[in-house]
């Protein structure tokens, strides 16, 4: 019904008959949206004397904030580490396709590449809002080349670099520009990494530790200088040892600066991490767990051979290896599969599983005031899911951008 809306004339949509994830629990409440943001209905009622223009019955769905994937190397045949002529349309394709996985914001990730690739590709990545065209781009995640030779995983050895010569200047020269970079993964045991970490943190770039043979004190030092994330915990780092827990020890370290939290990415596709290890990490530090897909170009496509930057990757079912080896390289998991697998493997609550893919990545990137929650005045990026956590519909800025076909396609 029309009403006196002193603040804005924009239509108000009220989503009813749903359970929304708010304040860490599923509550039976309505979700109100106006102008792409979550609206406070009490203020609307008393201050503006307004009411809803449209009421939508959500048929008892769960409404959760949209998922945020901070490590995705490509998908559907697109490889973010390949400098092609139609790179931009590649980003567009992936951002559009991942809407059906519940991802509303993501960080296109580049694996270790020669400087020419960075110089060509990075200027083509721009931070932009999501919408009907696809998920929003939060900025690039640069995984390498300043990583350890011993833990390079699927990254090409000939492109690895160190900070020996010019530290931060070296990094700038390698990447070309840091304008749209959101996250950088590096190995903290490298000499002069502390200065680099400090410089990156000063610029608001999230520093992540990964592909490294650092011991715990080196990792703690990195955190003290500003590192806040661990790239795919357990993978490409020294295994946990009871006398030197290595990077894994950050989960329970007592040397983390006050007020800061260390987050860690987990690829919960059932392959990268044994469920028991996943449970250990989750129980040790539940509030730091960030679900990532680390998906590669082959995600969403039939099994076979695909590229990952300078390497060729073979996909067989859910396993993705460097062609001819048993070295894992990325995954073909989708974010919603990861959420479901995480919930099953840990037996955690639905709320916890959903927050690991929405609230925690938002907190990692310092954007939780507008993304990753359904708090009033946040961006209205949200999902409708059924009780088994299958995405039924995806909304960005309050508009429906994807809906599950009745035929389930």
């Amino acid at each position: 019904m029309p009403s006196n809306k002193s603040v804005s004339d924009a239509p108000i949509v009220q989503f009813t008959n749903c359970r929304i994830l708010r304040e860490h629990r599923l509550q039976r409440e309505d979700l109100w949206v106006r102008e792409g943001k979550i609206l406070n209905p009490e203020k609307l009622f008393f201050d503006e004397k307004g009411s809803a223009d449209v009421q939508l019955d959500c048929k008892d769905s769960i409404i959760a904030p949209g998922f945020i994937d901070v490590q995705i190397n490509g998908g559907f045949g697109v490889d973010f580490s390949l400098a092609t002529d139609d790179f931009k349309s590649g980003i567009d394709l992936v951002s559009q396709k991942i809407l059906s996985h519940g991802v509303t914001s993501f960080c296109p990730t580049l694996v270790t590449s020669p400087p020419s690739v960075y110089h060509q590709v990075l200027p083509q990545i721009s931070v932009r809002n999501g919408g009907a065209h696809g998920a929003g781009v939060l900025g690039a995640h640069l995984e390498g080349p300043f990583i350890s030779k011993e833990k390079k995983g699927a990254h090409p050895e000939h492109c690895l670099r160190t900070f020996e010569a010019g530290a931060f200047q070296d990094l700038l020269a390698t990447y070309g520009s840091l304008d749209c970079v959101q996250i950088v993964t590096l190995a903290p045991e490298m000499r002069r990494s502390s200065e680099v970490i400090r410089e990156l943190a000063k610029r608001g770039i999230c520093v992540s530790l990964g592909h490294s043979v650092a011991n715990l004190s080196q990792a703690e030092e990195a955190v003290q200088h500003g590192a806040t994330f661990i790239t795919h915990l357990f993978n490409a780092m020294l295994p946990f040892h009871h006398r030197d827990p290595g990077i894994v020890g950050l989960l329970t370290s007592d040397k983390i600066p006050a007020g800061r939290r260390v987050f860690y990415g987990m690829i919960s596709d059932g392959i990268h991490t044994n469920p028991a290890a996943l449970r250990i990490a989750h129980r040790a530090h539940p509030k730091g767990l960030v679900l990532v897909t680390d998906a590669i170009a082959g995600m969403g496509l039939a099994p076979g051979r695909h590229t990952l930057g300078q390497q060729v990757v073979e996909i067989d079912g859910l396993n993705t290896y460097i062609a001819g080896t048993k070295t894992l390289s990325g995954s073909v998991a989708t974010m919603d599969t990861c959420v479901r697998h995480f919930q099953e493997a840990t037996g955690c609550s639905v709320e916890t599983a959903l927050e690991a893919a929405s609230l925690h990545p938002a907190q990692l990137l310092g954007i939780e005031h507008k993304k990753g929650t359904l708090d009033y005045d946040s961006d209205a990026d949200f999902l409708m899911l059924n009780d088994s956590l299958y995405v039924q519909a995806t909304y960005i800025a309050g508009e429906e951008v994807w809906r599950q076909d009745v035929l389930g396609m």
Partner: protein
Amino acid sequence: MKLIILENYSQASEWAAKYIRNRIVQFGPGPGRFFTLGLPTGLPRDHPESYHSFMWNNFFKHIDISPENVHILDGNAPDLQAECDAFEEKIKAAGGIELFVGGIGPDGHIAFNEPGSSLVSRTRVKTLAMDTILANARFFDGDLSKVPTMALTVGVGTVMDAREVMILIMGAHKAFALYKAIEDGVNHMWTVSAFQQHPNTVFVCDEDATLELKVKTVKYFKGLMMVHNKLVEPLYSMKEMGAERSQSKKPYSD
């Protein structure tokens, strides 16, 4: 007075809800308005303990009431007495209160008309008794300094002007107040007793609230429950909604 005694809190609440539903239907839609009252001053509107939040979370958000029909005394108005006077005017303009629904405090107060309030008072600013402040402390994490000390409230006289008054009294801690309200005399120390002089009052309570009453009183009114329960029967089936409206039953009177 009709004294309705139900076994427990939920049954009493349900009876009261059905009664109100019937009265709303009888009143007819049209320009029917709801007034809500009794608001501690000094609390910002979106404070979780403000009456605005309480009414929103417990009532308004569950129904389709239009916001223009909600009138809550604004404890943050610049001129509090003017706010109170305006409230009285709004009541008059709406044609007077058809049904007033309220509870009582353990000290027998109605709305915030604490002991000693004039029985002919109107809507005004009232200082709260220590008992009330203590009772409200639980909403402020037990911190007494945070509890508001004044409230805007409708007066006893304002409520007496309503055509019908319904008071809900639950729990053993209200038992003495109920006794003072209906078995003793009219007294400004127990302001609810003023309704003994109102032609049309309904008191709804649970068993525990009757603990201070004479057995004779309780037996008498329990004996009338068969008749009183007719007041909460559905007025018409949902299917026959249109036709029967004009033939709705008149309320039973004493």
